[in-house]
């Protein structure tokens, strides 16, 4: 059955609107990826004491989760050592401040610490790289390509979407499947992720903040917020270690081997 199409679009719409928007969006994504790479400041070198202060917490957590692979005597000695050291605060960077810890002091300002400042600037940079192109593109499309129908969606939508997808088109009864260039922009915004993955490899930063976990691996790894009282963290870690029950993994290894090889 051949029916006349209810709307015929000018092919030059395709050549001068559809393709340019697609191309510009892809290129902007690639540009954003490289700008993010350029803006990443290399991790600053910290002194030994600061690193020890942060990593000893990880040491405690590691003992808790992996303690089952060492024999009970080793576990006990590590446990005793870590708890004692945490409580005495010997891993702390600033021993002087620790000795005077009973004196009241103002809560630390996260901006005052150099590490905190760095993190803030990095986050700001990331946000800028994401927001600025988004706003520019959106106003570019709004300015040049608004007020006409660009394409037909292959799937129907409810009438609710009409005001969003057909903004600037003054037709009351037109099917919602005919959409303006703004919707093409949104489709690109959400759908180009896999194109970037193919072009730039899987760990790219072109798509914007869709995946927060992959974006700042450095921030996730530390799990350490600046400006926090690290001695309190030590105390709670010591308590956690105290509560850990140790179960040695090689406890009945002889039986298991015999069972496995049917001896």
């Amino acid at each position, binding site marked *: 059955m051949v029916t006349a199409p209810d709307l015929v679009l000018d092919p030059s719409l395709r050549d001068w609107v559809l393709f340019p928007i697609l191309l510009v969006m892809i290129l902007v994504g690639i540009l954003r990826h490289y700008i993010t790479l350029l803006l990443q400041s290399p991790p600053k070198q910290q002194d030994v004491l600061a690193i020890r202060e942060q990593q000893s917490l990880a040491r405690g957590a590691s003992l808790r989760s992996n303690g089952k692979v060492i024999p009970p005597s080793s576990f006990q000695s590590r446990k005793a050592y870590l708890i004692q050291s945490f409580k005495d605060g010997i891993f702390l960077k600033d021993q002087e401040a620790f000795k005077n810890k009973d004196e009241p002091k103002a809560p630390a300002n996260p901006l005052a610490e150099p590490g905190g400042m760095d993190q803030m600037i990095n986050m700001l940079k990331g946000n800028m790289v994401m927001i600025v192109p988004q706003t520019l593109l959106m106003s570019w499309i709004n300015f040049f390509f608004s007020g006409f129908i660009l394409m037909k969606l292959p*799937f129907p939508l409810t009438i609710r979407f009409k005001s969003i997808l057909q903004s600037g088109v003054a037709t009351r009864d037109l099917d919602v499947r005919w959409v303006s260039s703004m919707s093409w922009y949104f489709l690109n915004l959400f759908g180009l992720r896999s*194109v970037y993955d193919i072009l730039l490899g899987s760990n790219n930063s072109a798509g914007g903040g869709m995946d927060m976990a992959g974006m700042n691996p450095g921030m996730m790894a530390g799990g350490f917020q600046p400006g926090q009282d690290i001695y309190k963290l030590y105390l709670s870690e010591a308590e956690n270690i105290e509560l850990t029950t140790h179960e040695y993994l090689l406890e009945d290894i002889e039986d298991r081997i015999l069972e496995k090889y049917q001896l």
Partner: protein
Amino acid sequence: MDEKERKQAIYPLSTESLQQNGKTVYYIRSVTSTIFGVSAGILGLESYYGFLFYFGGTAFVSLLMFLLLARGQPTEYFTSAKDIWTGNTLAGLSSFVLTWTLFYGLVDA
């Protein structure tokens, strides 16, 4: 320690390998969902048929991954067998819709 935890501890899965496997699945999903979008657009599928095409195709790709990549033993490579069947299917949907719309418009116009 219950039985399951014990098993995990005795036969541990490497986190890096798990991540790498997840990335592989993600990449396959990206590529295949784009290809499905192109083919759905060229075939001129509309509404439900397009989405059915996507989910059918994804299930087929999952089956191929299950048989060829994981050799029928997904728990050797993933924490749960679910990861290989449903992992990242919704992430691929948006790129499917994009290429579907694009090629539908190009063929139709």
